[in-house]
């Protein structure tokens, strides 16, 4: 019985970083209508920067510093990218946008390889969160619980932002109906930059948060972007709540599927994505395209 509890909690942990990353991706798509492949690069930047900042020191205060500082630093990069490159492709067709963000993905990937090399890196768990607690016969890491809590916190913060602030109102308006927004007098380019910066911040935050849970190595950007895509599609492009549900669905698929039918498990998530796209393309909680 403890096994199922542990498995479920592991799924929650996996869903946590994934949710934060996907929330950023889905917000950017909802408001800007851009699928940002380079979102995965920002995630990886966050993780790699954390390895540099924290080093091998198991001390812990450095990790908190990384958690606070790195996302903002990467967000600046995101803002610069949006202003210098992405603004030029807003009006163009989807193909142009996909190609541009993929090109950025390639460029960033190369930069990361140059800056951090090819060896696998690791961020140790901060000492304040080290160790595990016993849950019904099994052990579960404290840090994982923290990650779950952090994701819940981020979700709440995003909800507050979107529902309770003017900026959030504008973002929701952009997701619902962009033309109306411009005619209502909003500075649309500034809004877009803001949303993109928020999205990047979320990606990098997810990267730092996930760093103690896995190894940080080249290829991180590619693996997270695919997962984030799937989550965003299933949850609904543009919906943060959808991202939460999507992340949970995917994590459950992965954890349960692995035990059921291990050879078919990687296929499940793609099947789910195809099913959602074929039957209800705007996902569980997204807005139907006009």
């Amino acid at each position, binding site marked *: 019985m403890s*096994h199922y509890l*542990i*498995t479920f909690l592991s799924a929650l942990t996996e869903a946590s970083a994934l949710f934060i990353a996907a929330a950023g991706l889905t917000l950017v798509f909802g408001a800007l209508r851009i699928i940002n492949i380079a979102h995965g690069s920002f995630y990886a930047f966050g993780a790699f920067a954390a390895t540099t900042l924290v080093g091998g020191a198991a001390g812990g205060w450095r990790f908190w510093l990384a958690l606070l500082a790195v996302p903002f630093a990467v967000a600046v990069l995101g803002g610069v990218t949006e202003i210098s490159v992405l603004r030029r492709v807003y009006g163009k067709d989807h193909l142009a946008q996909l190609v541009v963000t993929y090109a950025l993905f390639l460029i960033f990937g190369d930069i990361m390889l140059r800056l951090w090399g090819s*060896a*696998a890196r690791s961020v140790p768990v901060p000492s304040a969160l080290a160790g595990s607690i016993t849950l019904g016969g*099994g052990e579960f*890491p404290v840090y994982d619980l923290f990650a779950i809590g952090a994701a819940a916190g981020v979700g709440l913060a995003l909800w507050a932002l979107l529902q309770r602030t003017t900026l959030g109102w504008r973002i929701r308006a952009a997701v619902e109906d962009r033309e109306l927004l411009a005619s209502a007098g909003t500075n649309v380019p500034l809004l877009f930059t803001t949303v993109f910066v928020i999205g990047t911040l979320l990606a990098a935050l997810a990267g730092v948060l996930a760093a103690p849970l896995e190894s940080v190595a080249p290829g991180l950007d590619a*693996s997270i972007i695919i997962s984030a895509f799937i989550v965003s599609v299933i949850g609904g492009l543009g919906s943060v709540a959808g991202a939460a549900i999507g992340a949970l669905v995917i994590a459950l698929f992965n954890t349960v599927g692995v035990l059921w039918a291990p050879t078919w498990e990687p296929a499940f998530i793609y099947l789910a994505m195809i099913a959602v796209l074929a039957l209800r393309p705007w996902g569980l909680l997204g807005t139907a395209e006009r």
Partner: protein
Amino acid sequence: MRTKHRQLGRDLLRRALLPVAAGCAALLAAGCASSSGGAAPSNSPSSSGGTVDIGVASTLSGPFADYGTAGLDGIKLAVSQINSEGGLLGKKITVVSGDDQLDPATGETVTRNLILNDHVVALFGSVSSGVAAAQEQIAGQYHVPIFFHIANDVGLTTKTFNKYAFELSPNTDMEPAAAALAFAREIGHGPVRIATITPNYDFGLDTVAAFLADLKKDGVSYTVTDQQTPALGATSFTSQLSAILTSSPQYVFVGEYGADLVTLTKQGLGLGLFSKTKVGAMYDVEVLQALGAQAPAGAIAWDRAPFWTDDSSQMQAFVTAYKAAYGSYPSEFAITGYSAAQAWAYGVKQAGSFSADGVVAALSGATVPTVRGDITIRSCDHQAEVPEETGTVASAVNATYGIRLWNADVLSPSPSQLIEPCS
């Protein structure tokens, strides 16, 4: 009439101009790209003086880039030392490299270009067995000796073997045999409960199957409680590890390596894997360095060339030189790369020429002096009779090297204990 024909002719010429120009440009570009494909031009090896090229076609980007890069670094160090001592047969050696991006098609292109454009006289192979098999085919086709020192699938010396291929690493029969000996030393005769987790592809599956068979041969009686095969490239192992823990094994054999092993270890630590079971995996210097203080003390470890267990003067000299050149300690792949380069150089000296058939004949069955000591290369399948060391992960930082490595109780089985006899 004539003007009409002339008009027609001129018209045709105009219409054809652009496509023909494009076609010629294409052929020209292809011809130019081929001849300039290498990093440095090479002279024909038969002339006196000048340089000779060797090619390293390996994985230099992506998740396993550090394996390929380490191998390349080891080879480059060997070559620079050879050159500083006057070169080989009076010629300087140049290392030309290409990145296969872990893709067999790219690997084929890179390897072929190295052979046909750069006229390399020797090749050093890739990280993955899939790419390596393709490289072996090409090397055999063009008669270029190829040395594998990272990819070690036993198929390279059996199924797809040709006489130009050499394997300098313990193969996928030998490595699990060493692991089995290490487990047997801990277990005794059993009976014990064992679980396995390994990546779901050739290498992973073969390793587990061989390990279990060898364990039986070593006289250990066991029951397998659970076997997990996560997909290649999985980023989370918690579900699989959790399932394994539920089956209550006493020992766990782990087939993951590199970055995946780092992830698995971290996630396993959180689940109490290392306190509830005894784990064995390829805890080499790169993984241990990445894990740092989180390295699981007491875990069974194996490594194809752990430099810290070898206190011979040549190894010490190599470690010092490597650290001076690259700023880090050499991984097993740097050492096997270095040894492979040494083996090739030995073959050239014995043969007195760079010719492929000469080098192959000289190396077949030869005993080659390398940084790891004298190594015999079997004549039947060109598998080098190399050991694979095993030990247990230390709890304290190693005084000499400043990182956590292994305890002193290193097991170093002789190659004959590991290798299958020639059929």
